[in-house]
């Protein structure tokens, strides 16, 4: 029995408080915007304090290592399906609701509550005077509740419920300015695209339920016996591999992996703080978190599953990074950067390092939230201008935003000793150590691209020539304070990995041995070099330019990148020609075949009716003769036919006796 920390049993309050705030704002205080935002921020800050309390229990009191072996669960029964036991489990199916605390969820609690708190405080300044101010904070609270509930889920069904809830919040917040058609379209696109992935996840959950009879993570983990691993589904593919693939479709949608990445850049139509919180720091990493949560499933599956995860992650990383080079909208650059970094995290999980993936998740949450909020600050100052070529010279006018943004850029570029350096280094060394030299190369090249396009953004927007029509001014303190705090974490966040009992000691797969790893300068060296090379190259190319020199030098390549490899166009083409074509065929089938059968039956009945109605002559004597003859026949049948009468029964003709 592990030592109970008093804080653990109160962890359910962490998602409950934002829920309460959502209900209060939605039903009572909607008319008073200031009160609404105060309630929302008070709730999330209390959650943050509780999360820190829980984290203190996990990391500082020494039970953290025990929790990796035996996670703490605090559950109430929700549904019990009595009767026949399901699958391998001997007990009836139980679905519970509760909180699961291990270092992984504790780390996520800290990141989510911290970023959510800062974003909500920032939003007070950014959303000032908006008509939907109260509604905005209600959604923010709902999102915080959903995300924290997802993090604390003890079983896959609970996780799936919150998974859909964060998707809903994402939809609501992308479409927050619903009077803009582009926002409406983006919200719909995001919702539908992620639904495609959720379908796979749901199938995977059903597969697990069918075989194991439980969805509880800990119980599932203990069921991963060699016999289970050897179970074959179809055609030599093991059951676990199939399930792992299905479950992985969920993260493909939610975490924007190729080919379901198209929704994330469009999701930038929402308010910028929303992009920072939901589409950079928290919700989109839910997919990565899910993979980490059920990592035992991927380990139990055949190596092809993790291989696939790693390859897709690596591909997404380089794919999105190359697109980011040619974008001009400041938020879209960051969106593609997010996609690329998500690919990085997925790749880390795929090459077998849960630690590296989650570490990068944490540091990325800090510096990407920082950069999105910085971009929001810039957009706010320039009155909704988002094209980086229309900016320039902002550093002089916006000292705090510019400096913190620079810290974010350096962090994501992997410059030591900032956060991104440590996590990126762990991913690269994991790729190299676990025998994926190609992915290591891709990772290294992506790191250079990342440094390149981030420096490009910074050089053009903050250091470029000043524009006369712009009158930027520094944002109010409610907006700059979160930037400063996030900048602080972007610097020191990576240091969590340095001590021997640091990040890797706590956040590792359940039941695994802790292997301390020394700094690998063979990996770190090239990583630093490519990062710096990217920065310097980008500085040389873009400094002082008024238009894109890359566009002039490589017009064709630039055009392809600018149009995002025409993926959206390709999807549109598919929808227009193939889906619509199939639709037309099915429409024809419905109108002429299905309806034809139904109409045909009616027509047959009607024609038979009009044929047989001729039998009704209205001639009294004809009827009388028919009666008489029928009577004779019945009489003969009864008299001479032993049991022949039965044969006259039309209902008995079909073989009745």
């Amino acid at each position: 029995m592990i030592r109970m920390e008093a804080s653990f049993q109160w962890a359910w309050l962490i998602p409950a408080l934002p829920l309460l705030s959502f209900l209060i704002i939605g039903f009572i205080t909607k008319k008073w915007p200031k009160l609404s935002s105060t309630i929302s921020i008070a709730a999330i800050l209390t959650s943050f304090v509780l999360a820190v309390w829980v984290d203190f229990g996990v990391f500082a009191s020494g039970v953290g290592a025990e929790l990796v072996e035996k996670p703490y669960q605090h559950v109430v029964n929700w549904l019990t399906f009595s009767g026949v036991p399901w699958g391998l489990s001997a007990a009836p199916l139980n679905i519970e609701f509760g909180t699961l605390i291990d270092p992984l969820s504790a780390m996520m609690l800290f990141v989510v509550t911290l970023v959510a708190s800062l974003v909500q405080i920032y939003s007070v300044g950014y959303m000032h005077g908006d008509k939907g101010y109260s509604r905005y904070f209600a959604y923010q609270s709902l999102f915080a509740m959903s995300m924290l509930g997802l993090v604390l889920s003890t079983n896959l069904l609970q996780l799936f419920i919150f998974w859909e809830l964060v998707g809903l919040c994402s939809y609501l917040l992308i479409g927050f300015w619903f009077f803009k058609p582009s926002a409406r379209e983006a919200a719909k696109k995001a919702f539908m695209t992620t639904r495609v992935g959720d379908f796979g996840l749901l199938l995977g959950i059903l597969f697990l339920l069918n075989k194991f009879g439980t969805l509880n993570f800990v119980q599932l983990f203990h069921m991963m016996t060699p016999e289970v691993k050897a179970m074959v589904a179809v055609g030599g593919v093991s059951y676990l591999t199939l399930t792992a693939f299905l479950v992985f479709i969920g993260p493909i949608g939610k975490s924007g992996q190729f080919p379901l990445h198209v929704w994330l850049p469009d999701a930038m139509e929402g308010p910028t703080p929303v992009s920072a919180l939901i589409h950079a720091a928290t919700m989109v990493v839910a997919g990565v978190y899910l993979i980490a949560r059920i990592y035992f499933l991927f380990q139990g599956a055949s190596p092809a599953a993790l291989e696939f995860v790693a390859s897709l992650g690596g591909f997404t990383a380089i794919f999105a990074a190359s697109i980011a080079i040619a974008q001009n909208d400041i938020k879209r650059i960051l969106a593609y950067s997010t996609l690329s970094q998500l690919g990085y995290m997925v790749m880390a999980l795929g090459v077998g390092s849960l630690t590296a993936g989650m570490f990068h998740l944490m540091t990325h949450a800090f510096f990407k939230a920082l950069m999105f909020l910085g971009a929001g600050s810039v957009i706010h100052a320039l009155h909704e201008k988002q094209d980086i070529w229309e900016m320039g010279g902002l550093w002089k006018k916006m000292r705090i935003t510019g400096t913190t943004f620079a810290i974010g850029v350096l962090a994501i570029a992997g410059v030591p000793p900032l956060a991104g350096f440590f996590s990126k280094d762990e991913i690269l060394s994991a790729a190299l150590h676990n025998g994926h030299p190609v992915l290591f190369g891709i990772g290294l090249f992506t790191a250079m691209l990342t440094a390149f396009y981030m420096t490009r953004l910074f050089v053009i927007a903050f250091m470029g020539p000043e524009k006369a029509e712009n009158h930027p001014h520094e944002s109010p303190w409610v907006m700059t304070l979160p930037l400063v705090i996030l900048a602080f974490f972007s610097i020191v966040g990576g240091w969590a990995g340095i001590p021997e009992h640091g990040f890797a000691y706590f956040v590792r797969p359940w039941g695994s041995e802790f292997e301390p790893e020394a700094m690998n300068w063979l990996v770190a060296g090239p990583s630093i070099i490519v990062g710096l090379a990217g920065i310097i190259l980008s500085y040389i190319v873009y400094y002082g330019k008024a238009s894109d020199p890359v566009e002039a030098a490589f017009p064709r390549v630039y055009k392809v990148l600018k149009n995002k490899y025409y993926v959206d166009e390709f999807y549109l083409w598919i929808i227009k020609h193939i889906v619509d074509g199939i639709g037309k065929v099915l429409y024809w089938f419905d109108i002429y075949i299905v309806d034809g059968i139904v109409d045909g039956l009616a027509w047959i009945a009607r024609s038979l009716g009009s044929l047989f109605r001729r039998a009704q002559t209205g001639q009294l004597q004809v009827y009388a003769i028919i009666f008489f003859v029928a009577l004779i026949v019945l009489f003969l049948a009864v008299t001479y036919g032993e049991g022949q009468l039965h044969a006259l029964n039309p209902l008995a003709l079909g073989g009745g006796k």
Partner: protein
Amino acid sequence: MNFSLTVGLPHYLLVGAMLFCFGLYGVFSKKNAIAVLMSLELMLNAVNINLIAFNRFLWNNPVEGTKHLLLNGHVSAIFVIVVAAAEVAVGLALVISIYRSRLSANVDELDWLKW
């Protein structure tokens, strides 16, 4: 040769059957509605003959412990006569009513209730 003839049950039944067939033929073939009704009467009376004959030849026994005879057939025949009288009354009334409205009592023409 012995011409003496004993009239037994078969004779009555034969007469009844003949009457029934005449009636049946009349019902099937007569065009005048009144003739059809008359043929119907023939059939009913054929039944009456059967009932009386059966009672006379098969059931001519006293009720157990009394001097009374079983008269079920007779009673049934009287019921049939009563019902036939009522039926003819209604039937004739209908025929007259139809004749008044359509100036015809031909059953072939009385087909306007078909479909």
